[in-house]
């Protein structure tokens, strides 16, 4: 088992780049008083980013994924437990992929 020097350098570079992205969000907020418009904007980060993450995965992949996304959303709307909703999503995408290949 060995470590190639080029690979090691690339891994360190990628690790630093990723950690920088995580740390900078923390540092940006140091000493910032969050209220008003700023708070409204930050409160919108979770729904806005989650939606941007899932949109191509759900709505730009295929019919089965789009329909499974809707089934999953319905299950979430009914406030089923998180794990149940995930299983509904997985089960529905497997079933729907058999129909829409």
């Amino acid at each position: 088992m060995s470590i190639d020097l080029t690979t090691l350098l690339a891994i360190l570079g990628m690790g630093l780049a990723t950690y920088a992205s995580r740390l900078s969000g923390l540092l940006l907020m140091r000493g910032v008083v969050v209220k008003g418009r700023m708070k409204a904007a930050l409160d919108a980060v979770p729904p806005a980013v989650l939606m941007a993450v899932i949109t191509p995965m759900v709505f730009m992949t295929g019919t089965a994924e789009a329909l499974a996304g809707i089934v999953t959303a319905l299950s979430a709307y009914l406030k089923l437990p998180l794990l149940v909703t995930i299983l509904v999503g997985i089960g529905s995408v497997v079933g729907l992929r058999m129909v829409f290949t």
Partner: protein
Amino acid sequence: MSFKASDLRAGVSDSWAVCLAYAPIAMLWGTLAATKGFSPLEAILMSALVYAGASQFVAIQMWVEPLPILLVVFTIFVINLRHVLYAASISRHMGGIARWWHPLLMHVLTDEAWALLERRALAQPLTLGYYIGVAVPLWPTWFLFSALGALLGSVLPDPALIGLDFAFAAMFIAILAGFWKGPRTGMVIITSAAVAVMAKTFLSGAWYIVIGGLAGVAVAALMYQETENVD
């Protein structure tokens, strides 16, 4: 605020199912890394130090001889820019956790850990126990199973066959639903979805997450009225 075992248990009970999903995906990444010449040790190092799944898959896809290190590092940085938003948002709920922990805790802030933490923060402030309970089991699951994948090679079925590729999308949809606060949330997510689709269509790479997310955030800021009290 002190470290409570009950918080730790609450965190683990929210994250164990994500561990089950991380394991096969990490193994798949490990097998792909092995095809590009990664040893199990290199796979562990990358998964432990980078610890950002989507970017790791892209990096492995870009892995050629001679390795374009700067291009790979820059691409990974762009894909992972969304973490700036995650960290900025979640740090507001970490007031009860000692300051010196914060930089360490940032390293384990993956999409899934972040989503679970935001979900918890809707109901109560985060504690060190809960954060560790959610984020820390996921980390070794990711890097150990990466190494196992690199060691075993391609013995796994395609995760898509058993719908595992959809597990995270389903989890994000479920967590997203918890953030619904009425029509304004609708405006935010419609904007972010529409802009994400445009960015995904017209730009290469992973800019769509940051651009779509920021568009949604901008709409939320624009809709804010000085007279209301959102605190």
